C-alpha cells in the first residue's frame, strides 16, 4: 500500500480489509494518484488512474445530457470473475476518485457500503488547507529563473 499523505493510510486499509478489495486506487479528478493498493507496476497505476478518471468524466457528461443536475456518483463494471467500482467524492482537497477492483469474495453492495465509510473518513481526517501558507519566499522567482536557465540552457 502506498499513500502520498500518512493520514490516508488507515481509512484506506479499512476499505481494503472490509470490502475485500483486490486493488484500490485513489486519485484526483484529473487522474493524479494519491494512494494505491494492489498494483505491481507504476505504469499500470498511471494508466488505470487516467482511464478511471476519464470514465467518470465521460459518465458525468452523459449524466448532464440525460439528467441535468443529477450526480451519477458511481459506475460499476461487472466482469466474469471481477468487478470494478468507480466513484467520485468531494473532499477538503477537492474532488477525488476511487477505483476498487473486487472479486467473488466481495460484492457491489459491500464495496459501496465501505466506500461510503471511506469517503466519510477522508472528509473527516483530511487536514484543512493552511490559511496563510509560508509558501513562496522572497526571491522565489529569481531562483526559479536561475534554475530554469541552468536546466534548459535558456539565455
Amino acid at each position, binding site marked *: 500500500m502506498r499513500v502520498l*499523505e500518512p493520514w490516508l493510510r488507515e481509512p484506506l486499509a479499512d476499505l481494503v480489509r472490509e470490502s475485500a478489495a483486490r486493488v484500490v486506487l485513489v486519485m*484526483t*479528478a*484529473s*487522474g*493524479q494518484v494519491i494512494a494505491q493498493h494492489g498494483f505491481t507496476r*507504476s*505504469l499500470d497505476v*498511471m494508466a488505470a488512474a*487516467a482511464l478511471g*478518471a*476519464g470514465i467518470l*468524466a*465521460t459518465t458525468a*457528461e452523459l449524466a448532464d445530457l440525460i439528467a441535468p443536475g443529477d450526480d451519477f456518483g458511481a459506475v460499476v463494471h461487472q466482469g466474469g470473475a471481477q468487478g470494478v467500482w468507480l466513484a467520485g467524492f468531494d473532499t477538503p482537497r*477537492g474532488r477525488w476518485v476511487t477505483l476498487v477492483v473486487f472479486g467473488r469474495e466481495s460484492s457491489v453492495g459491500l464495496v459501496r457500503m465501505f466506500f461510503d465509510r471511506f469517503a466519510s473518513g477522508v472528509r473527516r481526517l483530511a487536514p484543512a488547507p*493552511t490559511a*496563510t*501558507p*509560508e*509558501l*513562496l*519566499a*522572497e*526571491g*522565489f*522567482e*529569481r*531562483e*526559479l*529563473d536561475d*534554475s*530554469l*536557465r541552468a*536546466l*534548459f*540552457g*535558456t539565455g
Partner: protein
Amino acid sequence: MARIDQDARTLRATLVLVGPRDAGSSSLLRTVRDRVPADRRPGDPARAGATADPLLDWLPIDLGTITGWRVRVDCYAVSSRTSYDTTRRLLLQEADGLMLVLDSQAGRLEDNLAALRAVQEQLLDRDGRVRDLPQVCCYTKQDLPEELILQPAALDATLNPRGAPSFAVRAVAGENVLESLHALVTLVMRRLVAANGNSA
C-alpha cells in the same frame, strides 16, 4: 490544480499543450525530453522504455529546489482527435498553464482558430466562465519555406488577441522550444505566488 504540500514543501503544477492536429505538440515534448537530463524527469514513462501512447504524452520535469521548495511540473500533450475530448477536458480542468501549439502554415489558420475555440469551450467552469490560465503561444513550423507560413506578427494578430508571450518555434533546430516552456513555467509560478498572497 497545483498541488502544494506544506509539510513536504513540494509544489507541483500541471501544464497542458493544446492545438490543432499535427501542429507539433508531441514533437515539442520530444525536444524537451531530449534536452532535459533523465535524472530531472522522474517517472517519465519514456525512461522506462514505454512505447509512445497515442492518447496522452506525459513528461514530468523536476525543476529543482527553489527557496526550499521542491518544484515539479507535469507536461501533458493530448491527441487532438475528438474521441479524446473527454480526456482533454479533464486535463484542462486541472491545468495551471497552457501552451498553445499553433501551426504557422497559412493553410492551417482555420484549424488553429477551431482548436482555440474548442479550448475556450473546454475551459468553461460550472458557472459558464472561461478559466483564465497563464499561457504562451508557440508558432510551430517556422522553419518551413516563407511562402507557406505566416510570420509571428500576423499570427499574433489573429490567434493571440490577449497578447500572451509568443514564440516562433523551429522544432528541427529546437529553437525557442525550451524558451517557451521557460516562459510558461515562470508565468504559472508567478500566478501561484500571487494566489498565495506572497510576493516574490
